[in-house]
């Protein structure tokens, strides 16, 4: 059994080498590509299972943003009477809700990757990144549906004579989505990796995301913020994205390439640290979870 010579071993082509700690920057995207069917099936699973045993089924994809928008319109628009950059309140809040939901959902759902899948991860190997990536994709599909819904309301308001108009900046939409996905994924997997050791974080996430929403111009335009507080709001990498989205789509708000570059840099930083931590934790998280 143990007679094989060492030299002979080195000549052989091993299909798999298991090492204690692989290169931190080695994302093994090739392997993820090999498991693309799995990613697709995870996405499908999320869609098929989420509204099983509900009467309205997929309609919930539309009802959720609608209810939030109505609530925001009543509370922040009618009662608090916050300014909306001259836009119809409904459109203002709905655009904010739709885009914020994508980021928040990506973050919330990826942040429980390890804890929620511990049982599965403990039994079988597949690239762990398949789970957060599938979350990004299924949320992207949700976003597209809700975005289409938003467009319908836009057309309605435009026909009613509203001044809201999309402009050429709309071509940047894919970049905005990419920025949000990157930020959501980055923060999500950092939190997910840390929750394998510290469950405390789980409770902070929901609260933190909500807090972050109020630090982002979702329910108010940045123009309504006093100038001395503005840098604070602008330090939030989500601010240029939400504002830019609203400007490109509705023609009100601000868009500034410098701020967007800042968001991009921030996103890359978060994503990189996220991947580093994720890679470290992934290998041995079963021992601590």
């Amino acid at each position: 059994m143990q007679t094989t010579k060492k030299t002979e071993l080195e000549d052989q082509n091993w299909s798999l080498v298991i090492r204690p700690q692989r290169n931190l920057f080695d994302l093994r995207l090739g392997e993820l590509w090999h498991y693309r069917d799995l990613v697709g099936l995870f996405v499908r699973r999320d869609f098929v299972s989420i509204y099983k045993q509900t009467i309205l089924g997929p309609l919930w994809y539309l009802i959720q943003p609608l209810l939030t928008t109505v609530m925001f319109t009543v509370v922040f628009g009618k009662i608090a009477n916050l300014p909306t950059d001259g836009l119809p309140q409904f459109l203002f809040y709905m655009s904010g809700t739709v885009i914020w939901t994508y980021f928040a959902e990506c973050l919330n759902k990826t942040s429980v990757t390890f804890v929620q899948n511990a049982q599965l991860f403990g039994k079988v190997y597949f690239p762990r990144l398949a789970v957060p990536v599938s979350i990004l994709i299924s949320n992207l599909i949700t976003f597209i549906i809700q975005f289409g819904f938003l467009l319908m309301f836009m057309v309605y308001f435009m026909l009613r004579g509203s001044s809201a108009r999309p402009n050429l900046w709309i071509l940047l939409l894919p970049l905005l989505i990419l920025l949000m996905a990157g930020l959501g994924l980055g923060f999500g997997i950092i939190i997910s990796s840390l929750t394998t050791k510290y469950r405390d974080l789980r409770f902070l996430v929901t609260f933190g995301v909500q807090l972050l929403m109020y630090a982002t111009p979702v329910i108010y335009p940045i123009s309504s913020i006093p100038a001395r507080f503005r840098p604070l709001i602008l330090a939030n990498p989500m601010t240029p994205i939400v504002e830019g989205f609203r400007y490109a789509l509705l023609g009100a708000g601000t868009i500034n390439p410098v701020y967007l570059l800042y968001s991009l840099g921030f996103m890359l930083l978060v994503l990189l640290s996220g991947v580093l931590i994720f890679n470290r934790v992934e290998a041995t998280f079963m021992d601590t979870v």
Partner: protein
Amino acid sequence: MSQTVISVENLSKSYRLGQIGTGTLTNDLRVWWAKLRGQPNPLLKIGQADHGNRDGETLWALKDINLQVEQGEVLGIIGRNGAGKSTLLKILSRVTAPTSGLVKVKGRIASLLEVGTGFHPELTGRENIYLNGAILGMTRAEVSRKFDEIVAFAEIEQFIDTPVKRFSSGMYVRLAFAVAAHLEPEILLVDEVLAVGDAGFQQKCLGKMNEVAKLGRTVLFVSHQMAAIENLCNHVMLLDGGRIITISKTADVISQYLRLFNTGAGKIDLTADDVERKGTGEAKFQKAEILTLAGEMTSSVQAGTGLVVRMEILSHAQVNAEIGVGMFSSGGLRLTGFNSRDLNNFALDLLPGQRVVVECKIPKMNIAPGAYRLNLRMMNLHRQVIDSIDQALSFEVVPANYFGTGRMPRGNNLIFLDVDWHYQSQ
């Protein structure tokens, strides 16, 4: 000479004690604070069983493992609980990473311990087959190709579009197993300790293993059942304390294992401190062993033959003691018990310092093949427990020509009865 498909080089895996199970920031801070003041880890459990592989707060579950497995080999892995068997399989299946060392593998690895993981209750059988297949590493096309086979194997044709949450547990396990069984891995890992399901299902796992091995594939098999190991494996590796004790021919390693650890053996020394016992302690079991009717030591008997349970008792007080033996299946089901007063109307009148050897003879084992455990118990006249040891002995009943007809009893039996069949033509 066939080629090496698994090469393990200087593999070690350590676990940090104290870190495991803390889970919250406050606990980690407590540990850190205690360390700072030079106090022992406050979260370390007292009296944690270890096998001498603990080094401060680091437990070496595996230490410097070197191993070559050739293609077509069926390698058994045995050892006591905590010897590192499951850890080794976990590293091979990439669920967790080693601390140091290297493993090189040729071909696809699959393990039968992940049966049914990743099933989503809301999805239909069809959807779950694809999902589970993908989780186990199959592509969509591969699953499609084997789909009909999987469904036929699981015998769930008419329920294929029903959500699996409506499946009976039997259907669920069959479907899960069917997917895993159609993976066609080059290397199969089987951890019987973790295998879910009933005896029939475990039997199916073993059958699948046999089949895989016959096809020239490689199998690594962890088990506590020496009979299964003996049946299936060419070679056996004995682990203890995270190190390899021996790798050799099956029979040699098994006998070494039994010699070394008594586990599963028909003989046990009950004077050690770590024997878990209950009772007043006025008298104590010192030794217990299982013998054949001919008086040879054994741990396995053929169905239909008899055995003798011999116990040595040392008394520390003047006490009147009746002896009871309880028989349990490996799954913990109590089969029967026999008490010296009930059966033979005797209890021992013990004096301080007196040693007595008691024998209990079971003339014919009419129970099904499998592993069984014996609990030993001494009670006084008031049914107060003097000494009681759970799972003191274990033995195995091996399949045999029970009825003397040359036919093996068929089906899933628990017991055998000596029945007479007659018929009359009319």
